[in-house]
């Protein structure tokens, strides 16, 4: 029994593992390279670029929340400041004809994020927990409201813009077409993800995890948890700055929304929904949330409400996020007992889906009456048209919602039993589950 456990974690990575890691990187690089060939429309390239930026930003956020245990409500400060500096840098480089090409500009954004983190971080990271969350909120509000006062630098409400194509060119890339921006984002994303992965595998990276788990004990193995938190904060600010600069390059504008509470909230949502306990969690979250916000906004007018409800649901029912949910099943897969839970999932799926449908219809009908009650009552949400004034629709929604809940509750109990059974069987085989 013990052999299985120890064999899963070797004392040091075997040559085969290193090869596997390099192979994976290579495959990702190839995939990023050919992606624009498969989806070449401007819209999808913009989407890919936004996903890439969001991945860098979310991963930088998870250096705080997932790796070091610091909940920040003001991470957009470093993202936004990176964006503003990138725009100013593009303008200065363009006006003075400096021999600096556009691909270097994100580094300027990153260094700005780093500088701000260095200055603001020492005070912020003195404590963790609620105190850190509060001071991050305070600093964020301080910077966001200052941005509206310093109009010359931040451009007031409208922000400041730049023309990214006027810079010094290498290989004759103008960075006008979206596909070139896509490659710029993809390259920086790959570099940033590798760098952040490497960082988790250093002495500092491991001490970050130790500080997250038990800041008190860290002091008794020779480390000052404040310094550990501070360094993590600085790195996090650096990568957030890179993400902000890429966003500014992508849109050729930086405005106060970059630094605002909504931006800070979005990165928190993405990271947490993806799963803070895993390295790939924020990647999953960034992809999911970016696509969801783009997709949902086409399907329904109140997508932000669904967004918030999904977040609350994840906090309540799946604290490990999407990645956590999936990884929970890994021991079952290893033990070969996954088959014991799957049937109960299928059974639970039907009433749960019915309940959610009823809920969504109820929301959409309410929205219709609240927002545009004078208009035509035939509404369309999620691609389905229905009559919001029809009693039949109301009744159906109520039946689905209440009936679905009552039936679903029983199937969830069933899922729980099947789960206990499957994990119990896995444990008997010596697989920790």
């Amino acid at each position, binding site marked *: 029994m013990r052999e299985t456990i120890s064999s899963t974690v070797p004392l040091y990575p075997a040559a085969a593992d290193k090869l596997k890691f390099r192979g994976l990187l290579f495959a990702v690089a190839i995939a990023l390279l050919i992606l624009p060939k498969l989806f070449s429309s401007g819209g999808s390239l913009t989407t890919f670029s936004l996903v890439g930026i969001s991945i860098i930003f979310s991963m930088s956020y998870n250096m705080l929340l997932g790796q070091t245990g610091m*909940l920040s409500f003001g991470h957009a400060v470093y993202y936004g400041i990176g964006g503003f500096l990138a725009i100013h840098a593009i303008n200065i480089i363009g006006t003075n004809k400096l021999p600096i090409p556009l691909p270097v500009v994100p580094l300027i954004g990153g260094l700005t994020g780093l500088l701000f983190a260095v200055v603001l971080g020492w*005070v912020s990271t003195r404590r963790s927990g*609620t105190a850190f969350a509060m001071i991050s909120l305070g600093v964020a509000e301080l910077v966001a409201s200052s941005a509206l006062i310093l109009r*010359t*630098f931040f451009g007031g409400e409208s922000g400041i813009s730049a023309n990214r194509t006027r810079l010094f060119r290498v290989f004759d890339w103008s960075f006008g077409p979206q596909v070139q921006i896509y490659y710029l984002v993809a390259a920086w994303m790959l570099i940033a993800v590798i760098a952040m992965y490497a960082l988790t595998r250093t002495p500092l990276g491991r001490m970050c995890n130790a500080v997250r788990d038990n800041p008190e004990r860290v002091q008794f193995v020779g480390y000052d948890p404040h310094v550990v938190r501070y360094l993590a904060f600085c790195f996090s600010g650096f990568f957030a700055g890179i993400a902000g600069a890429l966003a500014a390059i992508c849109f050729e504008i930086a405005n106060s929304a970059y630094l605002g509470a909504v931006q800070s909230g979005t990165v928190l949502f993405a990271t947490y929904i993806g799963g803070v306990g895993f390295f790939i969690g924020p990647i999953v979250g960034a992809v999911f949330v970016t696509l969801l916000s783009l997709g949902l906004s086409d399907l329904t007018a109140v997508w932000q409400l669904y967004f918030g409800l999904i977040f*609350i649901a994840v*906090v309540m029912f799946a604290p490990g996020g999407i990645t956590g949910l999936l990884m929970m099943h890994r021991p079952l897969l290893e033990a070969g007992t996954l088959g014991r839970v799957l049937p109960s999932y299928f059974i639970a799926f039907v009433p749960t889906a019915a309940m959610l449908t009823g809920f969504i219809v109820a929301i959409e009908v309410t929205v219709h009456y*609240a927002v545009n009650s004078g208009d035509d009552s035939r509404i369309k949400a999620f691609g389905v048209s229905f009559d919001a004034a029809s009693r039949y629709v109301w009744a159906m929604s109520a039946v689905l919602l209440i009936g679905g809940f009552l039936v679903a509750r029983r199937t969830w109990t069933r899922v729980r039993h099947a789960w206990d059974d499957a994990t119990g069987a896995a444990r008997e085989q010596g697989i920790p589950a």
Partner: protein
Amino acid sequence: MLELIVISTLNGVLSGMQLFLMASGLTVIFSMLGVLNLAHASFYMLGAFFGYQISRWFGFWPALLIAPLLAGAIGAGVERFGLRRVHNSGHVAELLFTFGLAFAIEELVQIIWGKSPVDFRVPPSLDFPAFTIFSTNYPVYKMFMLLVSVAIFTALLITLKKTRIGLIVQAALTHPHMVGHLGHNVGRIFMLVFGIGTALAAVAGVIAGPALVTQSNMAGSLGPILFVVVVVGGLGSLPGAFVASLLIGLIQTFAVSMNGSLAGAFGPLGAADEPTWLADIWGVTIAQIAPVIPYALLVLILIFRPMGLLGTRDT
């Protein structure tokens, strides 16, 4: 000048009392449940919108009673069916839950009442000047707000001193770790405390609604100020929250009414017309930096006195 000082002091005290109406609930909830309720200002907003809706249907006075009860019931439900479940996942999950809740409530309010301000007016029975100081008419509605706040504090103080629940709350304020040993009905007490705390915020919302602007962003703009108040006063300290509420209220009203700037004091910089970095800082008025002051205060407090003004616990 004297007029300005008197009026600003009155307004400042009033705004401070309003803040305390919310900060007191937030503080008690934090002491007992260990959760900083990030959605607290959302209940203030719910109070204002419920108040608006109910006063349109039944008039202002029923609204003043029903809206807080409604918001408090929602608060109690949130504690019972949401927070209690999340509690096992730790403090970060609890903070995140209230954060998500604040987001969802704002969206809901936006959906139901729209983004623009609603027409929530001072009831005619209270819409006349109370007295005139110098040349300014001081509205009776503001006196009414002050009166309601003071009445609620008196009631709270009596509850705190004379009832069993009050004693438990007091014990929780001084010995937060002992809350777990209160016995089998601890769940009900938590629900009650959360319900009352949110109802208090809603009262503040109902009475502030007509005086200020009732709009879907009111929680988002007030929430952070509220956290400044409880952190500056000292997390978990009721007297601290009181002092900090008044302090922030006064600072904000005074700052808004002042137009001084470095340029005003020292004359314009060389080429004053040219917009530069420095000119921005030089020309900014105190009124313009008013929104920044509370946060600057928060950062300073966290640097120099992390337990807050009257707090005993290190945050």
